[in-house]
C-alpha cells in the first residue's frame, strides 16, 4: 500500500507544483534568489492573482526529466531556497497577501553546500516566520513532506493533503532504518497519511488524487473557501490558530 503511494507521488508524471501554479495563478511572477548566494530552482517562490487577490505562492519542484531532477536535487530545498521563501513571506506580510505552499519533497537538501550555507538556520528562520505570519497561510501536500524541511513550508492555518500524500518526521525509508521496521509498517505505527492526520485534526481536507484537472479543480474550491474563512482573522488569531492546530498532534498525558 504505502510503497504504491510512494511510487505514485514520486513519479515523473505526478501533479507538479508548477502545473498547479500555471492553472491557478496564470499571471504568476517568479522571485529569484536569496539576495545573498544564489537562486534555488528546487523551490518556486512568486506571486500571482487568485480570484482577484494577489497571493504569495511557494512550490517545491521535484523535476520531471532527468536533467530537471538533477538541477532540482529531486526537490530537496537548499538554504538559498528557504531564504528566498522568507524574503517572499516578508513581502506577503507587508502587502497583506495570503501565502500558499505546495509540497512534494524528500526533505531539505543534505549536501555539503547546504550545510556550509547554513541549512539549519535557514529552515529555523522560515519555520519561525511562518508561525508568526500576520497573513493567512495554507499548506497543500501534493505528495510527501518530511522533516524540518517540510515543516518550514507547512506551519500553516490550513493543511490540505491529496489522498496519497504523507507528512512525517522523516522519510519512510529513514524511519525504517532507524526504527528497524519495514517501510510498509511505518504508517501503521505513526499517523503520517492524509487520512490519519485528518483524524488527528491537523489536516483540514483530504483531496482526491485522480487526474490532474480534477485535482486542481478540487484544490481551487478548497482554497476559495479557506481564504474566505481566514480573511477576517486578526494577526493574533492567525498566530494562535497555528499553535492550537499543531498542538492537536500532541499525545501528552
Amino acid at each position, binding site marked *: 500500500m504505502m510503497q504504491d503511494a510512494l511510487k505514485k507521488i514520486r513519479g515523473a508524471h505526478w501533479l507538479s507544483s508548477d502545473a498547479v501554479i500555471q492553472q491557478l495563478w496564470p499571471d504568476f511572477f517568479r522571485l529569484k534568489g536569496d539576495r545573498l548566494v544564489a537562486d534555488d530552482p528546487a523551490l518556486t517562490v512568486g506571486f500571482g492573482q487568485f480570484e482577484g487577490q494577489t497571493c504569495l505562492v511557494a512550490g517545491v519542484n521535484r523535476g520531471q526529466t532527468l536533467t530537471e531532477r538533477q538541477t532540482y536535487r529531486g526537490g530537496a530545498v537548499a538554504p538559498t531556497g528557504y531564504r528566498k521563501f522568507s524574503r517572499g513571506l516578508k513581502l506577503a506580510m507587508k502587502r497583506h497577501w495570503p501565502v500558499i505552499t505546495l509540497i512534494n519533497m524528500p526533505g*531539505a*537538501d*543534505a*549536501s*555539503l553546500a*547546504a*550545510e*556550509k550555507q*547554513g*541549512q*539549519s*538556520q535557514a*529552515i*529555523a*528562520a522560515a*519555520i*519561525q516566520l*511562518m*508561525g*508568526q505570519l500576520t497573513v493567512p497561510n495554507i499548506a497543500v501536500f501534493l505528495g510527501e513532506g518530511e*522533516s*524540518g*524541511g517540510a*515543516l518550514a513550508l507547512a*506551519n500553516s492555518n490550513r493543511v490540505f493533503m491529496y489522498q496519497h500524500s504523507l*507528512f*512525517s*518526521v*522523516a522519510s519512510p525509508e529513514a*524511519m525504517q532504518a*532507524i*526504527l528497524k521496521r519495514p517501510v510498509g509498517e511505518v504508517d501503521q*505505527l*505513526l*499517523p*503520517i497519511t492524509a487520512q490519519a*492526520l485528518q483524524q488527528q485534526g*491537523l489536516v483540514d481536507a483530504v483531496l482526491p488524487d485522480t487526474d490532474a484537472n480534477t485535482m486542481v479543480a478540487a484544490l481551487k474550491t478548497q482554497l476559495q473557501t479557506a481564504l474566505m474563512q481566514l480573511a477576517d482573522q486578526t494577526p493574533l488569531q492567525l*498566530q494562535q490558530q*497555528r*499553535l492550537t492546530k*499543531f*498542538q492537536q*498532534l*500532541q*499525545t*501528552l*498525558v
Partner: protein
Amino acid sequence: MGHMPAAGTWQACPQCGEHHHRLEWAPWQICPSCGYYQRLTAQQRLTQLVDQGTFQPLPDLAMTAATTGFPDYAAKLATAQTKTGLAEAIVVGQAAIDQQVCVIGIMDSHFMMGSLNQVVGQKICQLFEVGSQRQLPVVLVTASGGARMQEGLAALTQMSLTLAAKSAFDAQGGFSINVLTDPTMGGVTASFALQADILLAEPAATIGFAGRRVIEQTDQVQLPADFQSAEQLLTRGMLDAVVPRAQLKAQLAQLLRLGGKSA
C-alpha cells in the same frame, strides 16, 4: 586488563583511547592526553555552570508522551530514565551564574541522545514563558541528535511550537543565550538551537543539520574530520564564540551582566 578497577573509576577516552582515572578527568571532564571533551550529564553541567545551591527546578509539567505505537519505545524510555535518573532529556530551572539570575535549560545527550520529543519541547516552551513572566534571560545548553522518531510528527512539530514560544519571548524583549554542545543536530539545530540572540559553542562540538554519513552519501565525498565542528561554524559566521569549558561560566556571567538586565 584484569587489574582494571571498577567501571566509572577509570574511563577510556573515546578519542585517543587512553585510560584515565576519574580524578584526572575532573573537574572539567576533559581528557588529559588529547583534550577531548566528554559529554556531560545535565547534573555535571549544572555543577560546572551555576552557583552552588541556586538551582530551583521550574514547576513540573507532570506530563508524559503516550508511548503507544512503538512497542519498544516504552522500554527504551524506562531504560533512559533509570540510566540518567532524569524524567526526560532536559532539565529546566532558575539559577544564578556568578550571581546573575537566569532561567536555564540543560539537555542531556545520555537520555536517548537528547532527542526532542513532546515533553522536551514543552519544557523548552516553559523556559521561554517563565523567562517572560519573571523577566529573566534564558540560557539553553543544547545536546541533541534531533527530533525523536518514535513520537513522529508530534515530536517534529515541537520545532515550530518552541519557535513560537521563542517569538513570544522575543516580543517581550527577552534576552537569550544558547550554548551548543556535542552533538547538536537535525531538527534541534533547525529550530531553537540556532535562534538565540547569542550563540556560544564548546570546542570541537559537532553542530549541523544533516549527519556526516548522509552528506557523504548525498555528495559522494569524504568529509574532513573537523567538518561541522564548532570552530568551522565560527569561521562561517554561524556562531559568536567557541568557549573552552573552563571559561564557560565566566563567559555566560559576562553576557548576562551586559545583556540580561531588564530595562
